[in-house]
């Protein structure tokens, strides 16, 4: 097979792109396997050092915080629960509200849709005080419910589901009706399987969104047992090391690498559908 110059150029561009993505991660990983002192004195590393096991063990099991009780592992679990809850509920709620907007042709469907849509202009950060007030009045501070609930409505996902449902031909609904399907079974037997690539894609986006939340959990949680990964970075940053106030650079890298694992797992698990969902609307 002959290789064309155009192909070579394309490959060079692609390889550069891959390097751009992978090198920082590699540096983080390599640096996480050294001594903090080494990193501080010699800069970041490209090769694996000998402190790998020790650093990771320390990050995972060391108890931190004021109460000296919260561990990184616990924070990963918290973030995972929060992201999972947010992603699942966002997808379910958006799919169902889009279903109502598209298939129940009541007069207010369009205004309601736009009302939902303009909430894009008021993200959580903007309405954080009223949100906090409501959640705390409901007594939901320091709970998973409190972490998840204010974030489960999604205009973006509702919009995408709505656009997708609108491309489904009317005859499909009509023939399902004649086959005895009711409103619920049409949703479960038709819309859900037809939009499963879309669901996977939305789930990944929303999982990453939930996982990287910072401000909301910071305000919401006073008990350390509900701390999340992104907040945890701060702890490691501020802690002292063997009496001397040294930044724990190597451990921080280890923490970063570990914190990437849950989203990566979700992406790997769902990527087959995710890519399909991005490049085609399968019907």
């Amino acid at each position, binding site marked *: 097979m002959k290789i064309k110059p155009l192909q070579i150029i394309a490959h060079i561009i692609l390889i550069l792109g891959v390097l751009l993505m992978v090198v920082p991660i590699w540096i983080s990983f390599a640096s996480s396997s050294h001594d903090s002192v080494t990193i501080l004195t010699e800069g970041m590393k490209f090769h694996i050092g000998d402190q790998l096991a020790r650093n990771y063990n320390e990050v995972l099991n060391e108890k931190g915080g004021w109460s000296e009780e919260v561990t990184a592992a616990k924070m990963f679990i918290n973030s995972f629960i929060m992201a999972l809850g947010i992603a699942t509920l966002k997808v379910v709620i958006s799919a169902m509200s889009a279903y109502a907007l598209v298939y129940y042709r009541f007069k207010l469907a369009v205004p309601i849709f736009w009302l939902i849509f303009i909430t894009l202009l008021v993200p959580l950060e903007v309405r954080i005080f009223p949100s906090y007030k409501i959640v705390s009045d409901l007594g939901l501070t320091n709970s998973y419910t409190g972490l998840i609930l204010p974030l489960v409505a999604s205009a973006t996902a509702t919009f995408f589901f709505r656009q997708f449902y609108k491309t489904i*031909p009317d*005859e*499909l609904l*009509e*023939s*399902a*009706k*004649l*086959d*005895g*399907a*009711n409103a619920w*079974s049409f949703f479960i*037997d*038709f819309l859900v*399987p*037809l939009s499963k690539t879309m669901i996977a894609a939305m789930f990944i986006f929303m999982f990453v969104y939930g996982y990287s939340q910072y401000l909301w959990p910071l305000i919401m949680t006073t008990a350390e047992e509900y701390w999340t990964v992104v907040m945890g970075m701060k702890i490691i940053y501020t802690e002292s090391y063997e009496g001397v106030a040294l930044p724990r650079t190597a451990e921080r890298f280890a923490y970063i690498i570990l914190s990437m694992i849950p989203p990566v797992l979700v992406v790997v698990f769902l990527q087959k559908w995710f890519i399909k969902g991005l490049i085609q609307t399968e*019907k």
Partner: protein
Amino acid sequence: MSFLDLKNVTKIYPNGTKAVHETSLSVDEGEFMVFVGPSGCGKSTLLRMVAGLEDITEGDINLDGKLINEVDPSERDVAMVFQNYALYPHMNVYNNLAYGLKNRGIDKETIEQKVNDAAKLLQISDYLQRKPSMLSGGQRQRVAMGRAIVRNPKIFLFDEPLSNLDAKLRIQMRLEIKKLQQKVGVTSIFVTHDQVEAMTLADRLAVINNGIIEQLGTPIEIYDNPKSLFVAGFIGSPQMNFLDGNIKNKTLSAEGFEIKDIDSDFEGEVKLGIRPEHLSQSENSLINLKVDLVEQLGSDNLVYGQLKNKKDFCYRCPGNLTIEKGADLSLNIENNKYYIFDKSTGKRVN
């Protein structure tokens, strides 16, 4: 009361379009009824009202002795085959057929048996595990039929199901639908704008124009005895020839010839209709035709030409006659088979 009864059914769409006007119609049990008419005449609307997919603005529809105006489509026990089949894209053929049965809470073994029987009848047993996207047009058509048959509904509704197929497959499927309907014996309504399809399939035919049933009858009745200008022009291929004329004292003077002693008391402006196949060549000619073009179909020849006054005219003769382009033919109407319509109302007057 017959099996399906439409009484003064009217449909006005929310945007004000009046698609069906006070239509009454009965269909007997086991009958194959065909709705035929030009595009936009309201055939689909009428059918969809029977299915329950459109609200009925006015009038009543009774099915099997029960008023179904307000009955949900899922409760009506009707099956419909759509023009684009509307197969369930994410289900394999088996599940496409089984879905309606599952919704009725039928047990698994019975479903399997029914699906397999229907698949056998339609010769789609080999494709049961395939998704619709992996089937040819004809196979999809069969699956759509299978989905209707398997539920054993009270009535089959077909909305132009053959229009997406190529000409040859169309004729084949047309035949199969007819055979199948006779075998299964289910009351059916079939919508088409193809008059050949309508003629060949129908036990009875409803010719619809502008939301009104212009004529209802067996295909032969309608062909032999069209009651209006529209029906006469719509049924029959090639189309009936129409000439302007005038009746006075039982004598019709048309464009270039006269017919005496006609069977009508009408006086005034008329249209004279003559089917191309009701003409023959003879000595004492009525009509002179200058041939422009001959289409040889094998069994028949279609001769197109012009009358003296340049009016287009068609004559159908047996295929064994050789007719040259440019020839002058003298034609006569066989057995007085001509139709006279009131020019202003379009109503038949002889």
